[in-house]
């Protein structure tokens, strides 16, 4: 049974949340309790399956699964791949674990957060579909499937952003998000079409193996990088992020962070695996680094004057994306240079990837804490809030943990990953490192302002009746907080067992191609 599950796990992690979502219209007849239980159960099953798969993959055993072939490992019946192939290497497993864990916690949080509003079965359906889209995006080894998963992700998250549709602003944010993401997805499709026209292949590994790097390939590279950078909220296209994260319900915002990171994963996958050293790595790497620097700095400067607590956090999310782009971009820039890669390139990439998982956790925690504030007080205007620490001490503690972590204070996990980025980037170019540190300080200043205005100060009369948040909400936040502490105290273990294999897998282009061909 275990071996059977493990063998089919790459397909099942995508299929499970999908089927659970399809069954939702039937379950909704049984009432809201059944819907919630079913969604949580499905996500728990997905999570355990992903952990099972991830443990196997991380121990150096990548999985390849040809959908519909006579045996799962029969990828090339005629010398080339003809079916959709799911390829889970350590990097994919790493991202899949993040997605599954956060989706489970978000679902748990939602159990109470979206209690009073209608349309619950649709909410959980879309949550499950979004999980499936994310899992597929990080696991698939096929360029066209990537487009389809990207669209599934954007349609379902677009709908979830507009959950409070009567507010007007949220449908506006959702509209903006849909336009940006559908144009991005169309660019991916165009790139897939260009590759298909040249090589008659859609599989990432097969295209990578045949790559000639002519003019058309460069066009496709530019289209793919632009599309995924747009989707992950890098700077010239960051305007949708603040609206979408700000207007979505809080758990959905926490989940959208992971969705952006799935796009980030696709960006890395395209740069490292599809193109690899063949790409003009110096130029591409610098492009990512510059994009990262701009994203980091503009994000934080736009965050400081915000008055809306969730909008402020969204701009910080933009800013943190810059760190990941910076770390991985430095590695991409020195990919052709073995000495530099060994001495600081790999550390930079590990820092970037470590920051991905840390960001998912602390940003999730912060958004969930903001959600708790909104849930109890009904406002998100920082000028109206104040003195909440008297009434919601637990929320205050969780918020503080998230805020310290995002600002990179020891002993929280943000410190560990940022330290790795600072160290390695300093050896690449000291100026970049200084700007990154400055951004961190600005982040700390901004969050201290938020903490001060929302939690400290005298107890305001209008919030006298405010209570601590309900249990499902603080349990999910507590799990995140515990993991933030653990990752901050034992960063070396995390790097060794999670981030290290992932970064090795991303660098091992030959291994990825060899898995299929």
């Amino acid at each position, binding site marked *: 049974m275990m071996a059977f599950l493990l063998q089919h796990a790459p397909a099942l992690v995508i299929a499970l949340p999908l089927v659970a979502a399809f069954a939702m219209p039937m379950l909704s007849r049984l009432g809201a309790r059944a819907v919630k239980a079913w969604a949580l159960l499905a996500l728990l099953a997905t999570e355990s399956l992903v952990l099972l798969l991830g443990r196997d993959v991380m121990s150096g055993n990548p999985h390849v699964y040809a959908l519909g072939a006579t045996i799962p490992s029969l990828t090339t019946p005629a010398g080339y791949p003809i079916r959709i192939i799911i390829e889970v290497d350590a990097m994919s497993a790493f991202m899949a674990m993040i997605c599954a864990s956060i989706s489970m916690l978000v679902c748990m949080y939602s159990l109470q957060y979206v209690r009073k509003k209608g349309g619950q079965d649709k909410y959980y359906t879309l949550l499950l579909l979004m999980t499936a889209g994310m899992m597929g995006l990080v696991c698939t080894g096929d360029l*066209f499937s990537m*487009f*389809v998963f990207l*669209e599934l992700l*954007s*349609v379902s998250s*677009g*709908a979830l952003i*507009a959950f409070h*549709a*009567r*507010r*007007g*602003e949220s*449908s*506006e*944010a*959702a*509209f*903006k998000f*849909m*336009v940006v993401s*559908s*144009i991005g997805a*169309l660019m991916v*499709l*165009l790139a*897939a*079409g260009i590759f*298909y*026209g040249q090589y*008659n292949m*859609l599989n990432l590994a097969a295209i990578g193996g045949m790559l000639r790097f002519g003019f058309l390939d460069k066009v496709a590279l530019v289209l793919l990088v632009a599309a995924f950078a747009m989707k992950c909220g890098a700077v010239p296209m960051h*305007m949708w992020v*603040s*609206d979408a994260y700000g*207007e979505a319900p809080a758990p959905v915002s926490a989940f959208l962070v992971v969705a952006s990171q799935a796009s980030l994963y696709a960006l890395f996958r395209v740069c490292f695996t599809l193109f690899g050293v063949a790409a003009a790595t110096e130029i591409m790497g610098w492009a990512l680094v510059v994009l990262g620097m701009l994203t980091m700095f503009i994000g934080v400067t*736009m965050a400081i004057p915000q008055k809306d607590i969730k909008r402020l956090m969204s701009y910080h999310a933009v800013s943190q994306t810059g760190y990941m782009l910076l770390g991985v971009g430095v590695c991409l820039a020195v990919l052709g240079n073995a000495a530099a890669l060994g001495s600081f390139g790999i550390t930079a990439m590990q820092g970037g990837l470590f920051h991905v998982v840390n960001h998912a956790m602390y940003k999730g925690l912060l958004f969930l804490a903001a959600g708790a504030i909104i849930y109890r007080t009904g406002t998100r205007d920082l000028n109206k809030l104040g003195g909440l620490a008297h009434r919601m001490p637990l929320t205050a503690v969780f918020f503080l943990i998230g805020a310290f972590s995002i600002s990179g204070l020891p002993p929280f996990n943000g410190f560990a990953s940022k330290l790795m980025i600072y160290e390695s980037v300093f050896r690449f170019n000291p100026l970049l490192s200084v700007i990154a540190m400055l951004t961190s300080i600005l982040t700390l200043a901004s969050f201290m302002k938020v903490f001060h205005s929302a939690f400290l100060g005298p107890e305001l009369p209008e919030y006298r009746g405010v209570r601590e948040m309900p249990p499902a909400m603080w349990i999910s936040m507590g799990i995140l907080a515990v993991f933030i502490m653990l990752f901050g105290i034992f960063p070396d273990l995390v790097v060794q067992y999670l981030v290290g294999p992932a970064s090795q897998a991303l660098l091992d282009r030959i291994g990825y191609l060899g898995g299929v061909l």
Partner: protein
Amino acid sequence: MIDLPFIAVIVLIMLGISAAVLKRNMIKIVMGVSISASGINLLLVALGYREGGVAPIFTNAPAAQMVLPTPQALTLTSIVIDLAVTAMMLSFVILMYKHYGSTDSRKRRLSG
């Protein structure tokens, strides 16, 4: 030799994207996204065409070379996805029209 179909496809895609970027009316933005999606579908189909080919269906097929089947399958998929995206975006436009009383994107409240 100039390949007119590909040029037409690029013109179509750019028309759509220009409409999405430059127009103020949100219905026109939706139309723009749809048009560029159609352009890309046409590109896929055009890539799979073989001179004088017939559809890749064996039922009573004439004896001739067949065109490539994959682009047609991809196009089928992408048409349905485009339909779904359009439906989603139009429903947001309906909501905004109800809320703001206009389809003009300048009247929106959110900035940035």
